[in-house]
């Protein structure tokens, strides 16, 4: 069954793409400037690759949201702990750059969900991008998996700025009405919107919990009946 996504506006997508492109441009200017040290130029090239890859993932996500058809994203039993390990592999350089420690669920976590592995990876990555970008360095970020009734929840907890009550209610309202979700001034909310769309494609949901010292974003997905085989 085709799922028609409510797409974010062009200005939202343009804003989200402009920021990393401006950074890519500056990094390339630095890398090409021989007045800077070899070490600085090498570091710029590494960061250039990281930023370019993130931008490509965003464009890919937008493309997939705009062409969201069930057949393109087959659902199957997926181990969310293994998915987290996949995400961890790609995220470590960025986390190091932002000065964060990310803790991951144990590989012994015995939960299977009905999902598409790639879409689940993107949801977790979007939540983590949000946490990395908007929290202070050296504060922990925790990824956890838990069971909630007949669903499994993968959550990303950050210890960033406390969300005001008004902003929290606005976020809940925006998640409900599927508008783009503005979590912080520099955020158009596109990453959370994409996460929400991907969750819907897998018959799941995303949500958030406001803490005194940060926010938890989570995705809930149906448990797989194959749990009994574990």
């Amino acid at each position: 069954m085709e799922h028609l996504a409510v797409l974010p506006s062009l200005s939202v997508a343009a804003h989200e793409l402009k920021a990393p492109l401006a950074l890519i441009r500056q990094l390339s200017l630095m890398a090409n400037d021989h007045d800077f040290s070899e070490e600085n130029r090498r570091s710029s090239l590494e960061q250039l690759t990281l930023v370019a890859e993130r931008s490509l993932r965003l464009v890919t996500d937008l493309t997939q949201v705009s062409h969201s058809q069930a057949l393109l994203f087959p659902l199957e039993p997926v181990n969310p702990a293994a998915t987290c390990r996949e995400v961890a592999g790609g995220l470590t350089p960025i986390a190091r750059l932002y000065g964060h420690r990310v803790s991951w669920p144990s590989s012994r976590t015995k939960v299977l969900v009905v999902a598409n592995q790639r879409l689940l990876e993107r949801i977790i990555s979007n939540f983590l991008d949000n946490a990395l970008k908007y929290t202070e360095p050296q504060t922990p970020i925790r990824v956890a998996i838990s069971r909630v009734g007949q669903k499994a929840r993968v959550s990303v907890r950050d210890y960033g700025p406390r969300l005001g009550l008004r902003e929290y209610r606005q976020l809940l309202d925006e998640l409900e009405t599927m508008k783009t979700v503005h979590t912080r001034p520099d955020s158009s909310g596109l990453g959370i919107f994409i996460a929400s769309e991907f969750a819907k494609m897998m018959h799941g949901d995303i949500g958030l919990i406001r803490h005194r010292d940060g926010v938890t974003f989570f995705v809930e997905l149906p448990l797989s009946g194959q749990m009994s085989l574990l």
Partner: protein
Amino acid sequence: MTRVLIVEDDPMWAGLLGQYCQKAGFSVVEARSPQQAMDRIDEGVVDVILLDMLLVAETGMALLNEMRGYTDLARLPVVVCTNNPVITQEVLKPFGVRALLDKSTMEPADVVVALRGALA
């Protein structure tokens, strides 16, 4: 040595801007938020501010408004460096902003020229 306070929440941008400033002979202090910036200013280690407008939890306007409330801080020169095309220099002038740089088009030398111009 002239001391630049870079108020920028993105570590890659903070690193780049810091290198531009240090290469030009400035010493650099960093802050990620308006509150951290005020702490650095209160320590008396700032001669000029290079300010990003879109920060974690607040915008740079929070810092500009705070500074405007104090006679001595209202005179501290500020250069705004932003991806936000909506802000114009006319809007920022009353807040002591001496120059506005667009992150998407600026060159490293533009940052240095803007800082030196703000201090002149």
